[in-house]
């Protein structure tokens, strides 16, 4: 082999890696090399085979064919423990944390090192401050937002002093400043000799951070590139295989106020939750209002207050389509025209072990416009629900084996398309969407964003809560920021520079008041 003649073998070499699942090709003849100190991007859409490849590298899955070399020596992984011994550690996209335990307890379980909780807690605090990932080691995981859990996951991995760190969509839930800090961290780690495999579809980030990129499509390598020398469009073309259309948001005069928050306050039930403090906001028919902010600043609480999952004491704090709605139940608010896409898709937005048809009955029980009404006189209307599910699958290009597929069998992006499609097709007057494209690939993200814009053009009031600032700038007419349970004014996106939003995210703003909305 040629590598053996070189002075330094690459840290990791993959040759001809192939893996099939029940006849479906996940990876076919994949070659890849990562050197010490290299940040190597693995780029591809959902279903391109990135996750399978990373499972093979981290020892979770065994390839059907192919060769893995570590520092020039062939290795076979019998399980994740083997890979971990070599120093290969993965930050998962879905976090394997026990919700009823604290951060430090979770990390103690995962690392299995012999040290006291106090020592471990001190190490966690040390690493988290050094790398700009602030977490309190004694917090219970169930009270943490998705973004905060990811920090725990990254810190857990760094504690193991890895030689090869695999990161799966790590920035999708971080604020711009936090992304910059993370990149500093990753560069420092690479400088110290750590190899990093960076899975993402965010082209800007890859061009900024990564030394090399391997692009996957349908399970095979379609190219390698030096991202700095490529344009976004070039990388995207390589990844998707064709040119991509852009979202278009055309100016449009908004209509009547459909959703209004009037001094919405709510003390958190959970000691680690965020209390909402006098939030004021108006969302009109035919506009998209975005709420930016780092996760854990009240987004979770705000969503469930608006959706009705945790009703308020004061009826007047929320007005929905002109009526007081603060104390109404989820069902009543749905009947008034509210639709909601939550950030947790599996287990909240959809029942994992039910078919897509049944998942349409879930929120389509009541008639909405010409659709829905899957429960009549107490009986399920499966035929109508099946047709609705099929149309949703077609219209939103959901990849699945038909409307009988279990929700759990869909990939994250496809399930999100399905849920967004389902809610939009149920004729919303007010649409609340949280993290519309978290972990969703470029094609699906475009489709979801365009669907939200189309919904706005049809006259619905749309409120998007997202941590991806780029996305909010793409689709929002107005933008507000939530920080520490307070909400800023919502200013037209064109008048609000991203730098100001960055400052607002730290809480440096004058909160909106009930009278502000009139101006907007």
């Amino acid at each position, binding site marked *: 082999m040629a590598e053996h003649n070189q002075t330094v073998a690459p840290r990791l070499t993959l040759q001809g890696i192939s893996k099939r*699942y*029940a006849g479906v090709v996940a990876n076919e003849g994949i070659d890849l090399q990562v050197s010490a100190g290299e940040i190597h991007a693995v780029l591809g859409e959902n279903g391109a085979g990135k996750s399978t490849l990373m499972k093979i590298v981290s020892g*979770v899955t*065994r390839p059907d064919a192919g060769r893995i070399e570590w520092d020039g020596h062939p290795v*076979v992984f*019998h*399980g*994740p*423990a083997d890979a971990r011994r070599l120093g290969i550690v993965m930050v*998962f996209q*879905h*976090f*394997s*944390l*026990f*919700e009823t335990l604290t951060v430090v307890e979770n990390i103690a379980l995962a690392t299995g090192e012999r040290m006291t909780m106090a020592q471990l807690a001190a190490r966690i605090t040390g690493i988290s401050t050094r790398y700009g990932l602030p977490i309190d080691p004694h917090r219970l995981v169930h009270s943490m937002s998705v973004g905060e859990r990811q920090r725990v996951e990254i810190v857990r991995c760094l504690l193991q002093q890895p030689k090869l760190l695999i990161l799966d969509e790590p920035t999708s839930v971080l604020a711009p400043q936090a992304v910059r800090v993370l990149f500093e961290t990753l560069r420092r780690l690479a400088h110290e000799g750590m190899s990093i495999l960076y899975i993402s579809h965010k082209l800007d980030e890859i061009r900024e951070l990564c030394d090399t990129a391997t692009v996957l499509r349908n399970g095979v390598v379609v190219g390698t590139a030096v991202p700095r020398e490529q344009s976004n469009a070039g990388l995207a073309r390589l990844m998707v295989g064709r040119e991509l259309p852009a979202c278009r948001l055309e100016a449009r005069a908004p209509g009547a106020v459909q959703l209004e928050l009037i001094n919405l306050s709510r003390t958190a039930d959970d000691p680690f939750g965020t209390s909402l403090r006098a939030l004021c906001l108006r969302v009109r028919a035919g506009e998209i209002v975005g709420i930016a902010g780092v996760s854990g600043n009240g987004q979770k609480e705000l969503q469930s207050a608006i*959706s*009705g*999952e945790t009703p308020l004491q004061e009826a007047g704090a929320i007005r929905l389509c002109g009526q007081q709605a603060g104390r109404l*139940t*989820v*069902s009543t*608010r*749905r009947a008034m025209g509210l639709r*909601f896409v*939550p950030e*947790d898709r*599996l*287990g*909240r*937005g*959809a*029942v*994992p*072990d*039910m078919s897509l048809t*049944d998942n349409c*009955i*879930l*929120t389509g*029980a009541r008639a909405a416009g010409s659709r829905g009404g899957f*429960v009549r006189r*107490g*009986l*399920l209307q499966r035929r109508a629900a099946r047709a609705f599910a099929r149309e949703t699958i077609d219209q939103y290009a959901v990849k699945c084996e038909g409307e009988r597929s*279990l929700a759990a*069998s869909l990939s994250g992006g496809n399930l999100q398309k399905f849920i967004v499609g389902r809610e939009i097709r149920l004729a919303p007057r007010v649409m609340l969407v949280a993290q519309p494209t978290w972990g969703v690939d470029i094609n699906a993200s475009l489709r979801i964003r365009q669907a939200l814009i189309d919904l706005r053009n049809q006259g619905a009031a749309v409120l998007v809560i997202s941590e991806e600032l780029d996305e909010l700038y793409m689709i929002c007419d107005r933008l507000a920021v939530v920080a520490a349970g307070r909400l800023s004014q919502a200013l037209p996106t064109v008048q609000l520079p991203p730098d100001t939003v960055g400052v607002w995210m730290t809480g440096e703003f004058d909160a909106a008041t009930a009278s502000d909305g009139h101006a907007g």
Partner: protein
Amino acid sequence: MPQRHRMAMPAENHWWPWRLERRSRPSALMRLASSPLAAVAMIICGFVALRFIGIDPIAAFKVFFVEPVSSLYGVGELLLKATPLMLCALGLAPGYRANVWNIGAEGQFTIGAIVGAGIGLFFNSQLGAATLPLMLLGGIAGGMAWAAIPAFLRLRFHTSEIFVSLMLVYIAQLLLSWLVHGPWRDPAGQNFPQSPPLPDSATLQPLFEGARVNIVFLIGLGLAAAFWWFERFTAAGFRLRVGGLAPAAAAYAGISERRNVWLALMISGGAAGLAGISEVAGPIGMLQPVVSPGYGFAAIIVAFVGRLHPFGIVLSSLLMSALYLGGESAQVELQLPSSVTGLFQGTLLFFLLAAELFIHFRLRPVART
């Protein structure tokens, strides 16, 4: 929950040539085969155990499983004993699917027996032909009322319905004991702790001559069909399933937990109460300190052996009934201890839980390299 799926990554070891691997989708074949497989494994296990204590297993199995049903009377007994198990298990299953864990069917059974028998004992002369139907309805209402206590306490004070319903079993049994020792004792009963016998007009008559099984068995079959329809076609059944499969999705979709808890406990309480009065108005014929040999608890096993499916429960209640009859017959003819029934019940449940693993996992030989 996705986290849990990820946790279930089996670590490899080197002395055992097989490993468990998660199936890409649950196996439909294993879903059907797991209960029969468990029954076969139970029989093999029993075979070995009997051999071990020096009894010819073939002869013993004949005594256990064949002799009890070799007469019309025996078949009648099989159906008779299956009836209360079937009723209780049918009622429990929708709740178990919905994450509402009523463990106290035995108590609701007892209260159903008390209320129904009370109607038969004290209002028989006024009610005439309506006595028996009203007794059955009274039994259902009694079971529901007893199940309402854990429902109310869970929704009002967040108590666990598991503990409350279980503790209420003992209260119900003591209440029955007090009644038959005290105010309801038969004055002509030579001081035995039992109520007067129920008059004929308040007693369920056998379905056919020479057996004791009565109309309630057919009611049970009808209820199985009704529950199947309920779970498959009604919105209420759908809401129960969502509440059990994904509580956060239920909250998101506006499915009321309150309504689910009440519905599940009313169904299970009512069914257990019906089973209770049917026993008292049927084979027993009066109230006595003990009206159930643990049907309410055995029904929990029946519900799971039947995979919480109404038709599965019909079959598993027949199997459990056969175990009860076989145990009695083995006691009489082979002088085996009565605990042999418990042995079979226990091993059956054990193997069933083991067989269920293979619905979601399969064994794969470890490739040697």
